[in-house]
Structure formats: structure tokens, C-alpha cells
């Protein structure tokens, strides 16, 4: 039975259990639900859940474990030369799976009978040609060992599929009987069902933690792998970045870090003044209709995908900066540059800074404004000398978060900053960032044993740590220096 068929069978049994359990709880009471401990539906749900939970759990477990068990048994039977190390083993197993899949297709198309497929020998048949005939292309001729392993694989898989169906169906029927048999008027069905629901809710909220664990685990393990192949000191302190997939690369992250920070500073120079001043204007000066129109319009910028900003950097901002500033000033002739990426990231961050600052400024109590204005200060004096100092921790927090976003931004720098790792002060020169290099090292064909690929994980880890630290620092500042009014 295929997995879909099993799922359908489980669904049918669960529905049956729902009605049977509900029926069984109500029947002795002459259909009067008031004599039950719980509403009748809860007995039904208890029945359905006692089918669903064990079967779905068993099915999921089986689907994960079966391939692992089968592969380890097959690998144990293969000659040692074919499974010498992890890479060879993975290649051989991929071959085995492909041949087994090809045989399955051949049987399904009626080219081979089931018995013929299992009796196939490389000495008598050209397996590669046979499988090519049913549309399964193999890279090389099939060795006798691989064919035998593939036949074993098919045999074990057939057993596995049969075992899976039997186990799940037995569990489903047992669950049905159990759930229905417990349906009695004194049984606290609601409490039981609510326990299960609560368990599901807890599981759902744990996914956030699991994601973090997954992020950290995936990067830490590969990063350690990288540091066994490449000296950790060179990674953090070397001044050159020149990866070379033939070996002998220099993978120092400092040029990338320099590019990242340079672009971030440029972006803050754009986003902080513009964002802050528009927030101040909107909060303190703008009339209501102006505010109602302008605020959503600025927030539209935040809804535009970053790849659109990337195109904007690539097609409009980059060439404009090159033609109007870089070339006349003799600073370079590259469209992609620190300036291009920085300015566009700055634009992207304007709504972020402006809406955060707007909230913070609005949170400053009106009494402070009234007091300052009452003493005769002008509005701008009130803003500069009363409101901004009161709002400062929040504004600093917002700026730090904007910096963290700029550091982690990818599409704009991929399309606007360039790919050359350089330590230069000229803002019109193309430089590169950590995110650009993560994308560069991980797209396309990658070899996960080479330090040139694994360095991306170390870069990702560094990026993750930097942005996380900035965010935590921002939150800490906001909490520590926040003025408590009232």
C-alpha cells in the first residue's frame, strides 16, 4: 500500500471511530446527552484521536527508520571497496537506489516480470540498456555487486512496505477498539481530549525553539568541520580572501567584514537622518491628514521585496552614481560599489527607522511637551532638548536593529555591491560582504568536503552571532535606559 492509501485508510477508520464512540456513549442513556460527563462530541474525538495518534506516530517513525535500516544492511553486504568512506558509500548507495528505482519502473511498465527483475544478472543482460529503455538513465554500466544490492534493496523495501501497512492497520484497529470501548458515561472524555490538544499546542510553540536549535546545530557542526580543514586564526585574522576550488585558498574573513561594515555605515548615514527626521515631522508637526497619507506611503517601502531594491541598485542607482560621481571625481568606474549598496539599503531601512522612532516619540508623554512649550521653548527646541533625550534609548535601539538588518541584507549587496573582496577606503569601489560570499560559495555545484564550501557555514555562523548580539544589545539598551512614565 502506498503512503497515500494508508493515510486514506487511517482517515476512514478515524471517522468510523468518531461516530462509533459517540454512539456508544449515548446509546445506553437513550440519547440523553445530559447524563454524560462530557459533550457527546468529545467521546467521538477521543475515539478518533486514539486511532490517529498511534498510527500517525508509527507511520512517521517507520518512514524515517526504514531507509536507514535498509541502507545499513545493504552497505554491510557490499564489498568494502565500494563503501570505503562516507563519500564512496553515498555514491554507491545512490547507484543502488537508482538501479532499484529503475527496476521498479521496468516492472511497473511491464517490461520485466517481478521474478525476472529479481533474477536479473549482469552477465546475461545489459542492465543499463534495459533501464535506459524505460527512461532511467544510468551514468555507467551496472556492476554485479550493485545489481545484487539493488535487488536486495527492492526485496527489503517490499518487506518494509508490507510490514508498514500491517503495523499501521493493526494499530488503527486496536486504537479504534480502545477508543470506542472507553466511551462510557462516566469517562472524562473532555479532559482527555483537552490534554491532547494542549500537548499539540505546546508542540507547536516548541517549533520556534527547535528552529533556533536547528540553525545553531546546522552551522556549528559544519563550522567545526571547516576549522578542522582550515586554521581558525587565518579565517579570523587573514587579510586576503581568494578561494580556489583546486586548493590553496586564502579564506580570511576580514575583507568581507570590512565590506559589510562599510556598507552598513553608509546605509545608516542614509537611513538614520531621513528616517528620524521624517518620524519627528510626522509625530510633531504634520497635520492629521498629512500624517494619514504620508505614513502609509513610507511604509509601502517596507513592503517591497528586497530583490526589487536589488534591481533598483543594479539598473538605476549604480549607473547613476558611476556617471555622476565616481567617474567625474576619478574615483572609479564600477556601477556596483559600497555607495550603491549602502544607499539602497539605507532606503530600505528608512521605513524601519521611521516607524520605530515614530512609536517611540509618540510614547513620550504629552505632559513633557506641554511643560517645555509652556516654558517658552519652540517646537524644535522641545524636540531636541526634551523629546529626543527622553526617546534616546529607543532610538538607539532602532538604529542598532537597522544596522543588524543592513549587515544581514543579501539581495541588495549581491546585485549592487560587487564580488571583489577588497580592503579599500574608496566608497565608489566594488567590495563584497559576508552574505554575498555565502551565496557565492553555496550556489551551484558544491562539494561539502571542501573548505571553500564549508567556509560559507563559518561566515553564516559569524553573521548569525553578530546580528544576534546587536539585537540583544539593542533590547538591553531599550530595557535598561527606558524612562518609566506614570
Amino acid at each position, binding site marked *: 500500500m502506498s503512503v497515500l492509501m494508508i493515510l486514506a485508510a487511517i482517515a476512514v477508520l478515524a471517522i468510523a471511530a468518531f461516530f462509533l464512540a459517540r454512539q456508544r456513549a449515548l446509546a445506553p442513556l437513550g440519547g440523553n446527552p445530559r447524563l454524560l460527563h462530557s459533550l457527546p462530541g468529545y467521546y467521538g474525538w477521543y475515539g478518533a484521536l486514539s486511532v490517529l495518534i498511534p498510527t500517525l506516530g508509527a507511520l512517521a517513525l517507520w518512514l524515517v527508520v526504514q531507509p536507514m535500516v535498509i541502507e545499513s544492511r545493504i552497505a554491510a553486504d557490499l564489498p568494502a571497496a565500494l563503501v570505503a568512506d562516507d563519500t564512496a558509500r553515498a555514491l554507491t548507495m545512490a547507484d543502488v537506489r537508482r538501479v532499484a528505482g529503475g527496476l521498479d519502473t521496468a516492472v511497473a511498465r511491464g517490461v520485466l516480470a517481478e521474478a525476472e527483475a529479481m533474477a536479473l544478472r549482469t552477465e546475461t543482460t545489459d542492465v543499463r540498456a534495459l533501464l535506459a529503455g524505460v527512461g532511467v538513465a544510468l551514468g555507467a554500466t551496472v556492476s554485479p555487486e550493485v545489481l545484487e544490492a539493488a535487488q536486495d534493496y527492492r526485496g527489503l523495501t517490499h518487506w518494509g512496505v508490507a510490514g508498514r501497512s500491517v503495523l499501521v492497520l493493526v494499530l488503527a484497529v486496536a486504537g479504534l477498539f480502545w477508543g470506542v470501548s472507553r466511551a462510557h458515561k462516566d469517562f472524562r472524555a473532555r479532559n482527555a481530549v483537552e490534554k491532547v*490538544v*494542549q500537548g499539540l499546542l*505546546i508542540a*507547536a*510553540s516548541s*517549533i*520556534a*525553539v527547535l*528552529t533556533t536549535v536547528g*540553525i545553531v546545530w*546546522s552551522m556549528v*557542526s*559544519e563550522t567545526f568541520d571547516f576549522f578542522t580543514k582550515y586554521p581558525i586564526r587565518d579565517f579570523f585574522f587573514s587579510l586576503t580572501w581568494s578561494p580556489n576550488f583546486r586548493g590553496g585558498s586564502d579564506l580570511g574573513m576580514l575583507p568581507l567584514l570590512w565590506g559589510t561594515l562599510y556598507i552598513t555605515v553608509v546605509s545608516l548615514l542614509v537611513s538614520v*537622518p*531621513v*528616517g*528620524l*527626521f*521624517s518620524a*519627528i*515631522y510626522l509625530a510633531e*508637526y504634520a497635520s492629521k491628514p498629512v500624517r494619514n497619507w*504620508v505614513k502609509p*506611503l*513610507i511604509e509601502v*517601502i517596507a513592503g*517591497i*521585496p*528586497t*530583490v*526589487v531594491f*536589488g*534591481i*533598483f541598485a*543594479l*539598473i538605476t542607482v549604480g549607473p547613476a552614481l558611476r556617471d555622476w560621481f565616481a567617474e567625474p571625481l576619478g574615483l572609479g568606474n564600477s556601477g556596483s560599489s559600497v555607495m550603491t549598496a549602502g544607499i539602497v539599503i539605507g*532606503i530600505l531601512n*528608512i*521605513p524601519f527607522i*521611521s516607524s520605530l522612532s515614530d512609536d517611540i516619540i509618540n510614547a513620550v508623554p504629552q505632559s513633557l511637551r506641554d511643560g517645555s512649550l509652556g516654558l517658552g521653548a519652540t*517646537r*524644535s527646541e522641545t*524636540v531636541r532638548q526634551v523629546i529626543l533625550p527622553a526617546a534616546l534609548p529607543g532610538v538607539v535601539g532602532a538604529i542598532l536593529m537597522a544596522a543588524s538588518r543592513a549587515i*544581514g*541584507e*543579501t*539581495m541588495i549587496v*549581491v*546585485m549592487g555591491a560587487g564580488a571583489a573582496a577588497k580592503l579599500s577606503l574608496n566608497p565608489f569601489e566594488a567590495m563584497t560582504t559576508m552574505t554575498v560570499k*555565502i*551565496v557565492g560559495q*553555496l*550556489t551551484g555545484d558544491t562539494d*561539502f568536503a571542501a573548505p571553500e564550501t564549508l567556509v*560559507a*557555514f563559518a561566515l*553564516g555562523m559569524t*553573521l*548569525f552571532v553578530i*546580528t544576534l548580539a546587536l539585537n540583544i544589545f539593542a533590547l538591553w539598551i531599550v530595557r535598561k535606559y527606558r524612562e518609566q512614565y506614570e
Partner: protein
Amino acid sequence: MTDLSAQTGAFAGSGQSLLTPSARMKRRNAAEARFRLYGVVAILIALATLAIMLFTILRDGVSAFAQARLTFPMELSAEVLDPKGNRLRDEMSKVTTIGYAKVLSAALVAELDRRGIAEEGVSEKQIGELISKDAAGQLRAEVLADPAMIGTTINAEILAAGRIDGYLKGRVTLDSAELDSNITPGQLRLAEQLRQAGMLTTGWNWGFFTNPDASDQRPEAAGLGVALLGSAYMMVLVLVMCVPVGVAASIWLEEFAPKNRWTDAIEVNISNLAAVPSIVFGILGLAIFINFAGLPQSSSLVGALVISLMTLPTIIIATRAAIRAVPPSIRDAALGIGASKMQTVFHHVLPLAMPGILTGTILGLASALGETAPLLLIGMVAFVDNYPAPPPEGFLDPATALPVQVYSWASRADPAFIERSNGAIIVLLVFLVIMNVAAILLRRRFERRW
């Protein structure tokens, strides 16, 4: 600090009228005006960049929705296309696209002869180059689907080559053709004659929405078909995976969670996850879903898993706000008449919070739709010119996504792809506008003040 002094006498020294500002006051008022101006300028800068950005995208992208086509009568001669004359699909498919390309260019040359259109220095081969390289494949597919077409003369609308398309849109000029190895000025002058003869026209480009991606040499045939399908698959999967989990997590955190370390850890986690750079989620997807779990690269399932994890914090934050907005009196009333805690939440709080949850979900999906960086790492940037199968198997087929297509077209050399890229952005933005307007309308319609 103010000029009340004249009346009170205490500051009589200045002896000034209230109505004539002092030098100091003038300075302060000027500073005030400057400060105010800075605010106006800041807002104008923000709005102007937005306007410029949208303007450049529209300017460069609108033409992607139009496409140049050549119209000329063409005899599908049986001798060439079905040499054995049996009209059997297997036999006919032995004629490759090269055979069809010859038929096409011969028909065009014949039509030009008939009409007496000629241009000095343009060979018959160059006339054939006016036709898109993709047209032969399309014609072949049509003929194979309907063998009865063979032997008839059809008045075909044939895709024109990318440079001709660009000429009609003003992107390619006689000057640029001088430097271009793909087109000669003679060919352009011929195209101009064809246009005046009504054989070369520009029309609405459905292919842009339905065609799969095309190779570097044939931008005129590239379309968003696979990308739209891939994005749609991903959005469906994100909706199915992310919303139930996000809502369940919010309910627990907001209504049931005891105050303890575990809950605190979850809270901190969610707010931190919302700030993790998107590329890190791509690394997670590559390491866990592809390398560890062995799911197929470039598949919409992996894309959806990664995007779901990214969108989860957004949805949780929005849902919690919506649940918190339901006043406690509702809960108290339900509990007071004997509902259990779970019944209170699911029968009363959740339905009342639903509009807020829906709004948050739509906005979360809108930002998920535009997400690009993590998808690059899980291989969705690959060149895919086969449509993914219908679900559920299709979720595992290689696909690409709308924003990724924007990126991959933008990184091609031919400027015709920049037009396509901007066109794809317009499509993407239209979807985003629809989603955001839907969210705003939902909020307006169902917003409730307690």
C-alpha cells in the same frame, strides 16, 4: 525666554514691543523653520525614492507584456514534416526543430518575395534570423499535437526574434545594431518594412505568464510559467504548514503558558528569530532539509519549509496581538457559565480574534512571497524549463519562484532580460498590492473596538 517683558516691567530693559521680534527670537524662529524644513525634506526624499523606484520599474517593465510577432502564410508541406505520409506521431517526431525552422524561414522568404519586400545586403539566412529561435519548437509542438494541420496553409503568428522585439519597443536602434553581433542594421531596416506592410505587429504577451524560462539566446520566449507555479505551490504549503502551527503556538503562549523558564526561552526565541537574517534560514534549509533529510534540491517543498520557518515569528507575533485584543470580559463570561478553558479559547476567543489573525497571516504571506535570498541557497535559482507536476508529487519537482526569477533574469547578459525582470517585478508587486489591499479591507470590515 519670551517677549512678554515689555508689559510686566520686570524685563523692561529690552523695551521692545511684543510684535517686533528680537534678534535672538529671529534666530530661534529661523532654527525652528530650518528644523521643520529638514523634516519635510526627509519625507520628500523618502517619497521621491519610492516614486523613482516604481517609475523606473514601470518604465523598464511594462513593455514585457507586449511581444512582437510576425504574421505570414505558411504551407506545412507534408513532404518535409511527415516524409512517410502516415501522420503517425512517432514518425513525425523524427523531424527535429531544425526541420521546422527551415520551413518557417522558407515561408517567410517566400512571402517577402511575393510582396516584393527586399533589403539590400540581407541574405535569406538573415531573413530567417528575424524569427525567434524558439518559434520552430513551438510550431513543432503544435503540429505534433494536431497532425491534421499538415498539408494545409496556415496564417501563422510567429514569435519574432528578441532583437526585433527590442527594435519595436525602442530598445534596439540602428546605432546599437552596428555593434551587435546578433543583428545587422539591414535586418532592422527590413523589419521596419515588414512593420509598414503590417506583417510585424506587437500584441499582448500571454506567453510571459505561461512560458517556462528560456535560454540566454532567446529572451523573447522566456516567461514566468514555472515561477508562478512554484510560488503558488510554496504559498499553499506555507499556508498549510505555517498558519496552524503559528496560531497554535500563539494560543498556548497567550492563554495557557505558565510563567517559567521554558516559556521565557520560547518568547526570547521568537523575538530573536524574527531578527535573524534571511540568508541564515537558507543555510539551515541547505544543511537540514537537503543534506540531512535528503529532500530534493530546488523543490518547492524545501522552499516552503524554509519560508515557513521564517514566516512563523511574524504570524505568531500578529496572532498574539489579535488574541490579546480580545477583552478579558469575554473569557470571564464564558468561564462563568461553565465552559472549560479550552472551550473558552476555541469557541469564543479564537473566532473573535480571527480577523486580526487573517490580516497578520496575509501580511506574513506577502512578505514570504517576496523572499529571495534563502531560496538561492536551496537551489531554486537553477534553470528550470519543465513545469512541475500537479501536486502532491509536484511539490518535490524542481521549480523556481517569482522573486528568484527576477534575480536570475537580472543577472543575464542580454538587456532584453532586464525588461523581463522588471516585468516580473510588476507581476510580483501586483500580487503584493492585492494581498495588502485584502488585508486592509479585512481590517476595515471586521475591526472591532471593545
